[in-house]
């Protein structure tokens, strides 16, 4: 009994956009979210302004959530996870388990979209000596987002306003030792965005960014990087920090200023580690449950085809957002919409019995 209903796993930006897309095409969407709220990382991690565009993350996400929850064609299942799947493209039988109480539910859908996203790299795993768990004033991008959102960007150790802050780029990315050889794509932009926000909220605090390469593709260059430098006077220093030591009540940042070819030993009040992206626990688990191939980093593998970015190794199952690898919001939402279109069109072709067409449109 083929149908064009689509199961979407994950209620973050990519999943929300996929649900909107499916409903917009007139098909039924079942949006499953393990947590008890929608919104994904921007809400759960309490982001301040979005990269790019600088709109308030909570405000924007709430607008999208309101649209999804008021849409009759979308069945939102909060607190559910996907326990099992059977069948094939056009006719999947999926068991949804309610977290905690053992209740389960079986649904029948024509296609599945995985939108289980990423998690921030845990700097406890980094191979330099940044001492994230050792020093209160060494924080991550998401710690910094929370302070920016609360408009209380201070030194965590003593609650004082900082005078000197630096970001260290590529923490947990581009690193063979750690195993994450890829660039996480967004950290240069987010660090620069946060540097601007810090300068806005704490004007007498100087902000430095230690980097290997600044990767500010497209409009991030003129919308974030250049204003950070030209208007907000953020200081970019090429050369990455090797280690952080305690010096009095400050942090001694040691590295090389590569364009000067000289060692650096400067003190900072707060160090922000620009930690990258890794596959979320949900992404890894769904890959296992759904039988999807993962790449060597644990992200869901997209068969190598630049022109088909939402395909997976299993026909009828699509991937969107950062479950497939490091992605910014634009790409996450974009692939959410693309996956919706692919999923509904495949399910409908199969429902019509047009298998040849269905195969061609995988």
């Amino acid at each position: 009994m083929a149908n064009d209903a689509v199961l979407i796993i994950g209620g973050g930006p990519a999943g929300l956009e996929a649900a909107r897309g499916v409903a917009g095409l007139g098909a039924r969407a079942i949006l499953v979210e393990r947590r008890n709220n929608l919104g994904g990382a921007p809400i759960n991690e309490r982001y301040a302004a979005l990269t790019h565009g600088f709109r308030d993350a909570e405000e924007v996400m709430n607008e999208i959530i309101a649209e999804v929850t008021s849409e009759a064609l979308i069945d939102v299942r909060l607190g559910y996870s996907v326990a099992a799947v059977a069948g094939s493209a056009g006719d999947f039988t999926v068991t949804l388990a309610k977290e905690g109480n053992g209740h389960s539910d079986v649904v029948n859908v024509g296609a599945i979209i995985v939108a289980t996203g990423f998690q921030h790299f845990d700097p406890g795993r980094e191979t330099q000596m940044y001492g994230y768990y050792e020093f209160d004033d060494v924080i991550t991008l998401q710690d910094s987002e929370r302070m920016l959102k609360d408009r209380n960007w201070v030194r965590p150790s003593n609650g004082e306003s900082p005078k000197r802050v630096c970001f260290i780029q590529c923490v947990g990315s581009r690193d063979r030792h750690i195993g994450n050889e890829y660039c996480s794509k967004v950290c240069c932009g987010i660090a620069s965005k946060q540097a601007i926000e810090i300068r806005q909220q704490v004007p007498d605090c100087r902000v430095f960014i230690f980097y290997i390469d600044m990767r500010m593709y497209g409009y991030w260059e003129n919308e974030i990087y250049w204003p950070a430098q030209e208007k907000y006077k953020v200081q970019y220093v090429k050369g990455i920090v090797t280690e952080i030591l305690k010096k009095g009540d400050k942090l001694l940042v040691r590295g090389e200023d590569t364009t000067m070819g000289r060692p650096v030993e400067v003190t900072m009040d707060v160090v922000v580690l620009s930690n990258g992206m890794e596959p979320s626990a949900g992404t890894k688990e769904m890959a296992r449950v759904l039988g999807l191939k993962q790449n060597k980093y644990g992200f869901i593998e997209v068969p190598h085809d630049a022109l088909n970015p939402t395909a997976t190794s299993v026909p009828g199952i699509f991937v969107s957002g950062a479950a497939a690898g490091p992605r910014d919001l634009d790409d996450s939402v974009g692939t959410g919409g693309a996956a919706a279109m692919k999923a509904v069109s495949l399910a409908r072709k199969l429902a019509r019995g047009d298998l040849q067409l269905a195969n061609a449109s995988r």
Partner: protein
Amino acid sequence: MPVKGVKQAPIVVEKDSVTVRGIELKGQWNRMFEPRVIDDYDLTHLDRVAALSGGESIEFCYQCGKCVPVCPVDVVGNYGPRKIVRKLQLGVDLTEDADLWLCTTCMNCLRVCPKEVDMIKIMPAVREQAILDGKFVPPELQKTFENIARYGNPQGESPRKRADWAKEAGVPVPIMASVKRPVDVLLYVGSYPSYHPRGKDAARAMARVLTALGVDFAILGHEEKEDGDSVRLAGEKGLYETLADSTIKTLAKYRFNRIVVFGPHEYNAFKNVYPKFAAENGLAWDYAILHYTQFLAERLDQLTPLLKKPIEITTTFHDPCYLGRHNGEYDAPRRLLAAIPGVTLVEMGRSRENGYCCGGGGGGMWLDSFAGGHQKMRLSERRVQEAVEYGASLLSVCCPYEVSRFEDGVKSTGNDGKLIVRDIIEMIDEAMRAE
């Protein structure tokens, strides 16, 4: 070192500081002459430069390094716009740093800079601040400022002698104050053609060429003063404004159709800088300005038949920074050279938009001794070597700063007899002398 067959550990005495012949030495200097570790990014001086009017773009630099390979000063030393930005970021006070006086404002960095970091505005602004703050100003530059302020020319010559060159021109050179009627061309001679021996050769050649073409021209004579553009770029804004004010008012007394200038620096001043100054000060400034190569190139139909004597020589042409990069004129001088019979032009590697700098711009003309202390060789010497490398026997120029600079360079690089230096106007004058 073993002593009596037993290995002895070396005795190392390291003191924090010691006084040698009355000079106190820090212990760390025993190992290296500057502290190696960067222990602070003191942004005081970077902020200060960025706060200056004209200094804003210093912070635009993202250290791509494009400027360094094209910087003529880096070719002969260790310098480069992006390096200056880094020094500022490291807490160096540019108003006290030798780098401040090495920039020739040649504009090759700005030409290639993706962020438009404008050293042509930054350097003069910081130099002005250094002067206002009473910081070190190279004495030779200070002396030049004084000469110009007192005598109206950098050489410190008598203003009364400004038109003396004309006596030996062999043709009448009318003075505006005496002709008492409108003329077609006001020839603005400039200080080097007025006073420097080799400059005077070119000035006389100019008078003869204009006369041969039947041009109705006159000069200002002793009313003429240094235009002040290089003074401005060297940081003496007050003196520049005095000179601009004086020149604008002098010219306002007379009627003429156009101003023809000898020097690219005057050309830049009159075309790009004076209009703004005049507008801000309620003065009139609306003149057609032509560099002499442009004026003559417009008259090639008339000029070419007069060039009867072949000059059989291989020449190369040095683009003046302030005619080429600053004002986009690359063709007029080349068209004149092409019109001279016998002349073969070979282009140097660094030519046109990427032309090398003679070292004279932005006050460099008056900083040779100082700059020499920070460079392996002079920029003019490097340029002479390049001309020789490209097989030229004659280095042709059209900026009055250059003849003397390059002739000195020919001697100091041992190229006497291999390369001669001529202003294009001298070559035209010579080609007119049918034997």
